[in-house]
Each structure stands twice: as C-alpha cells, then as structure tokens.
C-alpha cells in the first residue's frame, strides 16, 4: 500500500456490543407547528414547504420538519442583521445559563442532551484599501449534543443550538432530533483492527501515491444521524474518523469519515437507511 496510515492509540468510547435504536416513521401534522407557534408566541399561516411546515412572519420564521422531530426558530431577523454590534456577554457559563433557561421555558430541554460548547459568532469588517480589518464577537452559539447508551450521536441530525444576540437576548434556536425506540437487538462492533483495515481499504485512498500520509487524529464510536429533512430507519452505529491527508501535490486536506461499525445484512442496509445518499462515502466491511 503506497500511502502510510497513522491511527490514534484508541477509539474513544469503543464498546464491543451496541444496542440498536429504531427511529419510527413520523406522520407530519400541521397542528404540531401550531403548538410550537403558541410556545414561541408567533402567529401566521402554516405553509408546507416540502420538507417542513413553516410559519413566516415579518421578523421571525418557524420550521417544523416532516421527516424528524426537528424544529428551528429564528427571531428578530432584521435586527440581527442590522449591524455588527459587539456581544455584551462573553462568559461562556453565563451564556450557557441563558440558553438553559430558554430551553426550559420553551419546553425544548432534553435529558439526553448536554451542553457541549459555546462558539462565538464573529464579524470581520474590512477597512478601505490596506486598512486592517476589524474583528469582533457579535453573537454566541450555545451547542448541545445527544448521548444514547453512553455513545454520542454524530452527524447533523441530533443537536440543539441556542443563538444569543449582542444584547444577551435569544435570537434563534433549533432542536434536531428524531424519537427513538430501543429494540431488543444488539450488534457486535467490529474489532479495532478490522476497523483500521476497512478504513485503509476505503476506495478514497486507493489512488494515493508512495509518500502520501493519512493521519487519523481522532477516532470515536457513536451513532450517525441523518439531516432532519430525511427519514432514517435506525441510528447507525459508526466509527467517526477525523484527520488529514498529506501528499506531494497538496500539503493537507482534511477528512471526516464515518465507518459503519457493525455488519449488516443487505435487508438491514435498506431498512436502516444506510443507502441514504448522505451515507455515500461511508466505508463498510461486509
């Protein structure tokens, strides 16, 4: 094999057996977005936008997705865009407390989700000519991630975010989630060496020439979740690998790859949505 591979010492959270969580199909119902509208104290016509119901007002938007139990609310849209004002609250703990209170008040708190990080929204304004750009934090994104059976839910489909504007007021949030049903089924996770071998044999690396390096900086086990607009048959046990590739032509290209962590039958592959286009590129061992 021309390229050399380097793996971290361990896969974070690796367990030999994983419980399967099914995610039953959901019946879209416009009443649900109306209930949500009451919680957020907004009014308007419910419009079916294909992947979601939405209620749109002059200064807000509310989305309720059809394929999952996911929602998004954005408020004060004009105000939030009106200027680049510096964020007044910069203490992450204070920001988290604001977000926690907001989620509780809007009935969006979830015991399966826990605080993960505060990311500051930045604005950089270029000067005229060669003047140095001016940079400031303008808002804060308070993020929460989900955990099931001790494993993190990875990908875009299970997370909560609260956006706090420059003045400390909440200006948006989303909760991406799909209700799960724990079945009796547990699956055996592939042995670590098989995971490494499967990764090395991914077609993505087949063309790398001698001297190329593939460095996996982080590997962790979890369940992969699909975008909130897509149906998903089950949460997919995966190993997430993050790292970079270095070749003579391009010094560094980063990757985030998901390796299916268990063996599936062909029938399971379809039923659990592993053939979803979001998974294309996911390497698999059969």
């Amino acid at each position, binding site marked *: 094999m021309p390229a050399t591979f380097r793996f971290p010492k361990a896969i974070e959270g690796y367990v030999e057996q994983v419980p399967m969580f099914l995610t039953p199909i959901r019946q879209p119902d416009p009443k649900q977005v109306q209930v949500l509208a009451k919680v957020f104290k907004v009014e308007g016509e419910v419009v079916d936008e294909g992947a979601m119901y939405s209620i749109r007002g002059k200064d807000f938007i509310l989305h309720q997705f059809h394929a999952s139990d996911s929602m998004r609310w954005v408020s004060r849209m004009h105000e939030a865009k009106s200027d680049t004002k510096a964020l007044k609250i910069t203490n992450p703990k204070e920001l988290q407390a604001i977000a926690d209170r907001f989620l509780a008040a809007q009935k969006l708190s979830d015991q399966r989700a826990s605080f993960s990080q505060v990311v500051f929204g930045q604005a950089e304004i270029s000067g005229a000519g060669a003047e140095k*750009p001016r940079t400031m934090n303008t808002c804060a994104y308070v993020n929460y991630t989900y955990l099931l059976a001790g494993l993190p839910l990875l990908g*875009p489909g299970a997370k909560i*975010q609260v956006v706090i504007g420059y003045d400390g007021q909440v200006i948006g949030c989303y909760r991406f989630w799909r209700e799960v049903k724990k079945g009796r089924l547990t699956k055996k996770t592939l042995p670590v060496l098989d995971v490494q071998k499967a990764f090395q044999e991914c077609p993505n690396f087949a063309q790398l020439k001698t001297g190329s390096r593939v460095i996996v900086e982080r590997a962790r086990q979890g369940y992969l979740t699909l975008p909130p607009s897509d149906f998903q048959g089950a949460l997919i046990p995966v190993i997430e690998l993050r790292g970079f*590739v270095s070749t003579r*032509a391009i010094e*560094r290209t980063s990757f985030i790859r998901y390796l299916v962590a268990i063996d599936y039958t062909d029938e399971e592959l379809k039923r659990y949505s592993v053939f979803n*286009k979001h998974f294309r*590129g996911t390497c698999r061992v059969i």
Partner: protein
Amino acid sequence: MPKRIGVEWVNNYHGRADDLKNNDNNAEGFYNKLSGVKIFDYGDDSAWDTDFEQSGTGTPSSGSDTAYADNVDIVFFSGHGWISFGVANHDNGTAAPSEMALGNGRCRYLVVDSCESMSDAGTSRWKPIFKGLRAMFGFRTNTSDSGDRGEKFAKYLNAGHWMDDAWKWACQETEDGSCQWGYIHTATPTNSWFDKWTDPTNPAVSNPTLCFHSGSC
C-alpha cells in the same frame, strides 16, 4: 433577466489528495434544484482551476473565467479545501484568490463548499476577488463530504430567503455543531446582506468594504 448557474465538482483527485464521493451529488443537486438557466456542470477531469481564474493574472496566466465562473450569476464549487482540483495540467490545480477576480463579468455569488475555504482572515484573503461580486459562501472549519447540502441551499434560495440564511440553514442540516459556516458580503457602498436569489436584479458592487461572518452549524 433569468439568472445563470454554473457548478464544478471533483471526486477524483488522481492521488493529488484522497478521493471524495459526494461532490457530484452535492453540486448537481444545487444545479438541478436552483431556479435559473443551467450554463455549465463540469466534474472531475473537466473541472479546471483556470475556469475560476482571471485571464492575465498569476503564473501561468491561463485564466478563462470570462467563459465560466464569471459568465454566470452564481458559481458553486464542491471539492477539497480552498478550491483544489483533480487535474493540474491546465495551471497549477488550485484556484488561488490572487489569481481570481469575479464580478467584472457576470458573477455575483461564489459558493466554495470545501474545508476551511474561509479558515482565517476571511476578508483579507478574499477581498482581492471582489470585483463586482456581492457575496461568497464557504466554511471556516473542516466539513464533511456531504451529498445534499447544495440541493438544500437551492431549495431555500428558491423559497426567497435571504441568501446567508439559506446557506446557514443548509449547513446546519448537513453538519454537526463543531463545523463553522462562513460568508462574506459587501457592506459599502451597497450592503448585500439582504440579497435574495429571487430578487430581480443584483448589480455589481465596485470597490466594496466587506464583512465576513462565521458561526456554528
């Protein structure tokens, strides 16, 4: 006047980098979904760095953006970080900001769906390319090999949302919270922050000051 759309994507890097899987779906999902006139869809060995570069700039100065990237209202690239291509036999295989100048032709919006396209110094790095361009969309961090972000972005654009919201929402729906989106819009003399794809006209903005925003997906 109907708006024009162009996309370029790369999955096959011929060993220059690891291959990708979903950039055809990603770019073509955008191309097929977005309302407008479809002008070009070049992938793999047909996608060239010179298609994004200004004629007469860089070494070699082989740019031909007037026929491609600067001949459409919106151009979408999907591939490896910054704007890296699978073939390097037309120029050097990378469309560098120093070799690009968009908007002195028709282009108003550039989408760079690749890792770290706006990793730092967003306005400093990309300011030279704004020769009429109104906005650019990309990522501050690494991003996954998504097959459907382009289509989601196009759906929101068609629905008449502000373009930055459309990009943020498409990124939220395809990445985890550790990923950061980015976009640059013109601030003066024209503020393009409120642009919508469904707006009838989006004139070029000359000598703009720029504002770069980033946030968590």
